[in-house]
């Protein structure tokens, strides 16, 4: 029955005593184990897959350790510093990323000192850029310069300003950005190699390059003017295309008409002369008769059309009286 197994208070104390006694029995091993773990922690260390360990014995550099589990001398004799040699670091200039992500937020606040710079034509531009780098020599990184990041920061600014100072506003804004990226990368690398920072510059990239706020509208105006220019030229060509082809057509028409006139004239001439020649042939056969016939034909054609005809004798010297009478009678 269950209630029979329920211990009395005395029994509970007894059980407790027994357990404490057990604990004491094992406690020695327990303490040994704790010391063992503590010792191992000082002796063993691991280097991550993307890291290299720099080992120093009494401060002196003695070697590198590759990724994996390693042993060292504990108690401040050996010191191992893991350095991430695969990771690509990024330094931002003229802005700072507040929250990276799908919709990265940037702080555009007080970086004007960093981003405003003079161009070769003595203007001012607001330049933002990034520098990406990787550790190529952990030993140099740790021992050659006091503050590798500051070196990268300073030299990036030095170099970027020097190059922007050698290009004109328009070149930095548009055409020569990539050229500046490349040159700056080489130059930064050259200087930090000289300092022995132990870092490999991977990319230098100009991001936003803008005229200063106050000047921006004027820059936009130039772009608008460019558009306007294009528009005006296009309109002029449009007018050209409207007029010239039509004029060409009209010109063609004039020429064709002249050609028509030519054909017409020549054909008529040919026709008439042939007719004349035909008549002439006939005339030669019987000149008098033909001439007379033609004369009479002509008159018989012409006379009926005349309004008035007067036939007078050849001896009549004046015909005026005759005409007067007619006119008076008519009125």
């Amino acid at each position, binding site marked *: 029955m269950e209630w029979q197994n329920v211990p009395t208070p005395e029994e509970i104390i007894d059980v407790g005593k027994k357990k404490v006694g057990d604990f004491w029995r094992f406690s020695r091993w327990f303490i040994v184990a704790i010391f063992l773990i503590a010792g191992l922690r000082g002796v063993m260390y691991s280097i991550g897959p993307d890291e290299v360990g720099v080992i120093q014995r009494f401060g002196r550099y003695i070697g590198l350790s590759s990724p994996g589990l390693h042993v060292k001398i504990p108690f401040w004799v050996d010191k191992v510093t893991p350095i991430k040699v695969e990771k690509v670091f990024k330094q931002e200039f003229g802005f700072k990323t507040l929250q990276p992500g799908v919709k990265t937020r940037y702080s555009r606040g007080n970086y004007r*000192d960093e981003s405003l710079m003079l161009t070769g034509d003595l203007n001012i531009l607001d330049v933002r850029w990034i520098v990406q780098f990787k550790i190529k020599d952990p030993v140099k990184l740790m021992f050659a310069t006091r503050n590798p990041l500051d070196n990268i920061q300073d030299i990036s600014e030095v170099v970027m300003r020097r190059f922007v100072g050698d290009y*004109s506003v*328009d070149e930095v804004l548009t055409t020569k950005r990539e050229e500046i990226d490349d040159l700056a990368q080489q130059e930064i690398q050259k200087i930090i190699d000289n*300092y022995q920072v132990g870092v490999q510059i991977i990319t230098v990239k100009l991001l936003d390059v803008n005229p200063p706020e106050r*000047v921006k509208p004027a820059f936009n105006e130039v772009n608008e003017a460019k558009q306007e220019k294009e528009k005006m030229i296009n309109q002029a060509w449009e007018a050209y295309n409207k007029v010239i082809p039509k004029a060409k057509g009209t010109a063609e028409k004039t020429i064709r008409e002249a050609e028509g006139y030519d054909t017409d004239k020549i054909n008529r001439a040919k026709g008439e*002369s042939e007719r004349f020649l035909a008549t002439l042939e006939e005339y030669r056969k019987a000149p008098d008769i033909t001439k007379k016939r033609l004369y009479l034909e002509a008159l018989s054609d012409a006379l009926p059309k005349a309004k008035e005809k007067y036939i007078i004798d050849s001896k009549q010297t004046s015909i005026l009286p005759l005409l007067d009478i007619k006119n008076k009678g008519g009125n």
Partner: protein
Amino acid sequence: MKKLRTIAGFFIGLFAVVIAVFASGAVYVVNETQQVVLTQFGKPVGKPIISAGMHFKTPFIQEAHYFDKRLLEWDGDPNQIPTKDKKYIWVDTTARWRITDALKFLQSVGNEIGAQGRIDDIINSATRDVITSHLLVEVVRDSNRILQSEEKGEDVIVTDEALERIDAGRETLEKAILAKAKVLAPQYGIDIHDVRIKRINYVEDVRNKVYDRMIAERKRAAEKYRSEGQGKSAEIEGQVSKELKEITSEAYRQAQVIIGKADAGAVDIYGKAYNQNPEFYSFMKTMETYKHTIDGNSTVILTTDSDYYKYLKSLRD
């Protein structure tokens, strides 16, 4: 069990000795980034220790002074400096230096803070000397490449000041500053490794003037584009009327040539035919004109002598 106790005792004893040695200062550790100068009652002993690792010294009497062995940075405050052409600019320089003679360093400046002060003096005066003896463009630009690119016909107007040909660029100036600074540094046990001009900016009121100038330049550029547009448009208009005249006059000319040839051809044809008998031609033509000239308004008066009526008269005769 006793043996074990002896071994344990030995280790504990050894450990105590080690602790005592370290604590007394007989052993000291020099890091890879450090160098040490030993002094005995304030007086330097031997050469500075440059190699890293564990080193020994006399405990209690000798003292180890640690200095950095690495390349150190120096970043000056921006200075307002006038250029040779009296433009006031902020110049911000940065430098790299290292302690090359730790003993001299200890004796002359004591520590890094002291050294920074001396470097301030050295570099600021060198910078001032160099900047004031050069033009603004020489400080800003590095070469004359911008002149070539302008010659290639960049479309924006640039002030003449910016297009001055320069003999020395920014990097040359940096080298000049470095050379000047290098001379003064060794007395402090320091080597100035590099000096760079980090930032150059106009002072505030000059900056505003520059903005105004930029705006004016851009407006000029905009105006240039507009007038270019108008010019080009007018040019095209002119071309339209020119081509129009060319086309119409050319057509007229061709037409006239054709018509002329046609007329000439016709004359030739007529001539050839009519020359066979001019007398008959004139007769024929006269006859034809009768047909055409006599119409409903004409009055014809004929005498009986005419051929047409001669028979009329002869009957009467």
